[in-house]
């Protein structure tokens, strides 16, 4: 299996049981996940996420379970060299945007240019809509969710970019199903999709060819991500697509 949306590093609001890269890799491997796209949690809070990307890249094993997903902040003057360095020096397989944490709009010129540049570089872009339930955020650290519609509009504006909607919720994915289907460059991370019949209804709305297993580890329990799949009563073809083949094509692994 391939996990499209994992993290490593400390989280400032609670102690994570396994957050070092090697620990995250062990947890994922134990769950049967062979490869995972991992980005640094520190990058949400560091003023320059490049530092966090470099620190994480230095701790990843060559040919190991974890593949770097570099965080880029288009609001900073250095976003172009950060993107280039991530691909050419750090071995990043994708980039991640955190508009909510880095305080920019997805329709800003820099964000649009960043998406286009990532497309030209062949790096998929995860647009992370949220990291946690807003109700559970620290009272002094209220980070707004990124509207799914804004991420879809950004994807529409950059058809050369491959966009993953990270942390999208069930109602958003189902509600935006037609829009997602209409855009050939959009995929859905399942890490925060939840409803009692959520998997089946999202497959119906979006199609299994657009869905990607995501765990949100080490913030979320990996077991939950896998039991969610079981509850979807997936066919073998659907399971293969969602847990492996879609990500393999996207990441070229």
């Amino acid at each position, binding site marked *: 299996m391939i996990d499209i949306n994992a993290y490593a590093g400390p989280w400032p609001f*609670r*102690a*994570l*049981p*396994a957050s070092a890269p090697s620990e995250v890799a062990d947890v994922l491997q134990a769950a049967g996940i062979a490869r995972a796209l991992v980005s640094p949690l520190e990058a949400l809070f560091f003023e320059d996420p490049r530092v966090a990307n470099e620190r994480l890249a230095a701790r990843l094993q060559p040919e190991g379970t974890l593949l770097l997903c570099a965080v880029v902040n288009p609001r900073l003057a250095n976003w172009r060299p950060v993107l280039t360095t991530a691909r050419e020096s750090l071995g990043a397989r994708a980039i991640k945007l955190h508009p909510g944490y880095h305080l920019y709009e997805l329709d800003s010129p820099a964000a649009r240019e960043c998406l286009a540049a990532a497309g030209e570089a062949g790096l998929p872009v995860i647009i992370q809509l949220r990291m*946690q*339930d*807003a*109700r*559970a*955020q*620290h*009272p002094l650290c*209220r980070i707004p969710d990124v509207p799914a519609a804004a991420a879809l509009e950004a994807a529409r504006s950059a058809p050369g970019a491959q966009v993953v909607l990270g942390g999208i919720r069930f109602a958003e994915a189902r509600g935006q199903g037609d829009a997602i289907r209409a855009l050939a460059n959009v995929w859905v991370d399942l890490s*925060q999709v*939840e*409803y*009692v*019949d*959520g*998997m*089946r*209804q999202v497959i119906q709305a979006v199609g299994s060819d657009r869905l990607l297993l995501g765990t949100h*580890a*080490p*913030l*979320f*329990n*990996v*077991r*939950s*991500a*896998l*039991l*969610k*799949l*079981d*509850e979807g*009563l997936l066919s073998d073809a659907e399971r293969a697509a969602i847990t492996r083949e879609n990500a393999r094509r996207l990441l070229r692994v």
Partner: protein
Amino acid sequence: MIYDIHVHVGSAVRRFDGSAGEAAEEMMARARLHGIERQCISSLLNPGNLAYPSLEQVRQGNDHALSLAAAYPRHYLPFCYLNPRHERAALDELHRCSDRGVVGIKLLVSCKASDPLVDPILERAAALRLPVLQHAWNKTVGQREHESTSADVAEAGRRHPGTHLIMAHLMGAGYRGVLDIAPMPNVHVDLSGGEPETGIVEYAVRHLGAERVLFGSDAPGRSYGVQLGKVLGADLTPGQRDLILWGNAERILRL
């Protein structure tokens, strides 16, 4: 056999394929995929999540939960929903439902748990030996006017040491919630709702003991599998896991 202590039913829970009718059988089948063989249900019928239901709405909802339990007696266990603002009529409704076999009481957001209006219900619950599942959440945004926090539940537990209180939503109450209820041995916590965050189940077990932690999903708004993953993926001993998944429920529900 796993017990899910926190499930909602109602005609608002439509069949998964969108056809007419309630998804009671489908929810049963999905739960059973994970070994959940008993679901404790409460109902506010339709629209399902009323903050201040009328007495008539409460009665209809309870009749609905009781009818499902009668139709599937080996699976659904009915809880009696009450609105403490109905005062004497709420107690009458409790007795009506108790006579018909409810195994617990559900309180939502019509009244804070620490409000004196709730005291008669908690007293009667102890007399009837029925546990009280009390919604609670410590919200950064969106706290409702009469929505209980963990401090409210702790205060209710302190005033009624003979009543089994189950504070719903560990992830909503958070670490602060665990610390609030820790001194009250009659107050338990369920794991339902919220995200499957790592570490917090172990924290609750460390500070409350596994004897005070119960599995719940908050289905259908939540997935049985995602919520169960909180327990199966946590760093627990087999004994602790068994208590959380079924042992505590059987003891508290006296089954």
